[in-house]
């Protein structure tokens, strides 16, 4: 069947660079003050190759990407020695000309399709929109092309899927729909801004496969990411950005295996994985001692701190947790890994007795923990603490850090006001926060600082167990590294047991002594961390490990 296309969608691939950028500077002026966000970026994108810009939040990488599409934002002042798209000079393009470039010569992929596609419209319409904006007038042609595009990215039954909205599709399918809408007009350049953030590992693998396909077709890819392992998969050249500047630039392999600049080295070192077990991820603070000890094998495993047996939980007809059992020993870290919807968070809440189980029982420190009236549990609660992914919502917005910590210290400790104040100062010191943090509002702290406060609060009750529910997932890599180091230091110091929940396999491999793999509410595999990652047995675990981007 031939479809007469109204516009040619194949573009001759020119030899030489598809996109050339030299000396890009972007400043933002607001209320009279100027902030220079991008200070001199240069690179060349060739057809069929991928350049990755790596950096943490605030490095200027996202602004760079958007500037190249003419969407730097209001108040932006852009200077460059050269920005050319093929032969075309992009520094002097008017807005209505930009509209012709975007979508047709430049494609754009963002994070999670659940929010990057209009949730109220069918995905087919989103794809058709790109076509409509660039001259495709016939609705039936657009519809046919959209269905073809969905098929080409591997969406089964595309006629039906095109009529569905993003939330009706699974994670992988809607990510592909997003990609389909970006490549609809076969642009020469694809800008991917954090395309894999917040995605499950398996979906992430699918996205990377799609990008590979595009690369093979001759599209140039500009990949923006903070995730070095993702970048390692697909980039040919890497630019490392920090504070608006490029601190290192070169062939991907060189940058990753032999980084020159200290920042890059720090970044590469900070990525957790099997190879970093027992080592520090971040350079030492001056305040904490150098604890370069091998992973302590002396933890007494026979002393079970938390026992979970045959626990199940159903929500409105959906089984969230199905017959889950595990034991957490003293001083050990049990990692629970799974994708979204696997039931790991619900399991954590049941372990904390913040959620009641429909079946099964939980014992904390040998005493019955589930199925007991709350009044009975309350006296034992100080022994088990929790650190959440988003600490801000767990803090009372009106309270200062000092009050939050002071409030967490158990009342029956019988401390005078002076002693309490000193204890708060101690807690802050233990998490390497300066003493004056006590007078500040959590709102004004950085993500890493807030998480430290959350950890300090959990420590305030002198617990035996701490449940960490995606506690580092929202942090930049270098900050994540510091927090993970801190957690291990504290564990060694106090003999804490950790129930560590995460979807990030690298973090789990780095932190855990033993690992539980969950999917669909059930535990599919359990065992020693190294063994699971080296020789997974269950097919799901195998697929999960296989989807892992190759380690840096």
């Amino acid at each position, binding site marked *: 069947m031939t479809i007469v296309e109204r516009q040619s969608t194949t573009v001759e691939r020119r030899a030489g660079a598809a996109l050339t950028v030299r000396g890009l500077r972007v400043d933002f002026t607001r209320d009279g003050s100027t902030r220079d966000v991008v200070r001199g970026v240069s690179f060349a994108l060739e057809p069929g190759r991928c350049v990755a810009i790596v950096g943490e939040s605030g490095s200027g990488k996202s602004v760079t990407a958007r500037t190249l599409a003419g969407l730097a934002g209001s108040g932006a002042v852009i200077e460059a020695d050269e920005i050319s798209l093929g032969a075309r000079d992009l520094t002097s393009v008017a807005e209505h000309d930009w509209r012709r*470039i975007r979508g047709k010569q430049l494609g754009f992929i963002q994070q999670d399709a659940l929010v990057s596609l209009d949730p109220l419209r069918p995905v087919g319409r989103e794809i058709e929109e790109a076509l409509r904006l660039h001259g495709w007038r016939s609705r039936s042609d657009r519809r046919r092309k959209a269905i073809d595009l969905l098929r080409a990215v591997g969406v089964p039954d595309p006629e039906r899927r095109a009529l569905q909205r993003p939330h009706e599709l699974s994670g992988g399918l809607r990510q592909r729909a997003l990609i389909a809408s970006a490549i609809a007009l076969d642009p020469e350049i694809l800008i991917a801004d954090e395309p894999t953030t917040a995605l499950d590992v398996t979906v992430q693998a699918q996205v990377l496969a799609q990008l590979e396909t595009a690369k093979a077709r001759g599209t140039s890819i500009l990949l923006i990411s903070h995730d070095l392992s993702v970048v390692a998969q697909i980039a040919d050249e890497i630019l490392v950005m920090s504070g608006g500047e490029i601190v290192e630039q070169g062939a991907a392999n060189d940058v990753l295996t032999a980084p020159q600049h200290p920042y890059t080295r720090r970044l590469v070192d900070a990525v957790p994985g099997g190879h970093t077990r027992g080592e520090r991820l971040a350079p030492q603070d001056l305040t904490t001692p150098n604890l370069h000890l091998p992973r302590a094998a002396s933890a007494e495993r026979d002393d079970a701190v938390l026992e979970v047996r045959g626990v199940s939980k159903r929500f409105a007809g959906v089984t969230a947790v199905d017959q889950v059992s595990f034991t957490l020993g003293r001083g050990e870290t049990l990692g629970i890994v799974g994708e979204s919807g696997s039931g790991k968070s619900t399991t954590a809440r049941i372990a904390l007795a913040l959620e009641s189980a429909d079946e099964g029982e939980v014992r904390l420190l040998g005493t019955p923990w589930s199925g007991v009236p709350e009044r009975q549990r309350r006296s034992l609660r100080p022994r088990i603490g929790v650190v959440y992914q988003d600490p801000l919502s767990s803090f009372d917005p009106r309270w200062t850090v000092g009050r939050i910590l002071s409030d967490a210290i158990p009342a029956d400790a019988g401390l005078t006001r002076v002693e309490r104040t000193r204890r708060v100062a101690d807690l802050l010191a233990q998490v390497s926060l300066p003493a004056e943090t006590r007078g500040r509002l959590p709102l004004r702290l950085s993500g890493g600082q807030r998480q430290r406060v959350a950890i300090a609060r959990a420590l305030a009750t002198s617990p035996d167990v701490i449940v960490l529910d995606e506690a580092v997932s929202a942090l930049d890599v270098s900050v994540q590294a510091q927090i993970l180091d801190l957690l291990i230091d504290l564990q060694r110091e106090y003999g804490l047991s950790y129930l560590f929940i995460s979807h990030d396999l690298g973090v789990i491999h780095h932190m855990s002594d033993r690992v539980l793999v969950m999917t669909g509410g059930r535990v599919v595999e359990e065992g020693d961390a190294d063994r699971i990652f080296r020789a997974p047995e269950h097919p799901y675990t195998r697929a999960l490990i296989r989807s892992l981007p190759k380690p840096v």
Partner: protein
Amino acid sequence: MTLTSSTETLTTEPKPGAERGGRRARRFLSRISGAIVVLWGAATAAFLAQAALPGDRATAIFNIRAGQAQERTPAELAPIVDAFGLDDPLLLQYLHYIGALLRGDLGTSYQQFRPVWDLIGEQLGSTLILTVTGIALAWLVMVSWVTLTAGRGARLKNIGSAVDTVTASLPPYWLGILLLLVFALWLGWFPVMGGGGLAGIVLPALTLAIPLAGFMGQAVRAEYERTLDQPFVLSARMRGMGDLGIRIRHVLRHASLPAVTLTGWALGATISGAVIVEQIYSRPGIGKTLVSAVGAQDLPVVTGVVVLVAALYVVANVLVDVAYTLIDSRLRTS
């Protein structure tokens, strides 16, 4: 070249159709039952209101009819007691009342000897037309105003927001007089008193529309600004869509959701506003009937209106709920 990942089977698929249908039916039922509760509450309140009339009811009714307040003999009261069933036990009266309501009988006026429905029914149409026109106009004004002023920088946002707040708190009796003075008396663009047809409905409808537009505008504006920052808007821009296109094709649908919810409530509020507006512009409608009934303490008429408005409110809300789920299908399939 197609790529189907082998890990596709590992991700969770959305629920199958049968389960979804069951859940939808359950939600529909709960909405209906909610509506019935409101209606029942209205009917009971109406009945209690009538029973609560201070003093002996028969005497009160007689006095209302006669226009004088004085003691009456049992013989004089007897026909009234019969006609209104006042010597039945209260529970029986209640059941009679509910039964009558279900038949569409709203009772008999104290003041006149006619059924309440006759008194109200003929006027209701005019009031309803005014109400619906007012709401439609409010939508028009609100959508244009918010689309023009939202997401264009702090200054316009503050002005727009201030205008919303001020207009939302304008009482209809004052705004109506203001519009009347300016547009009818001074500029002469519209008729002053009771003009029928299109020209005569503009000012009264505007009087109702402007405060409603301000009120809805506050909610819509907030949602509008929030939506403009969403990632899918950036995606649309990256496809080459211009600003106006984004506002109309993407943002508007999201931002109008709170207004859709408010519209159900707005029906009741606007009808009562219409009561006042009809007084100002001397328009036909239930306003005059209602006010004089209140003054004379003619309870069946007042309670009749209350029950009627409750019924309309319930219908409106069910429609609004359906409209909402049509727009935002996330609720449909969750």
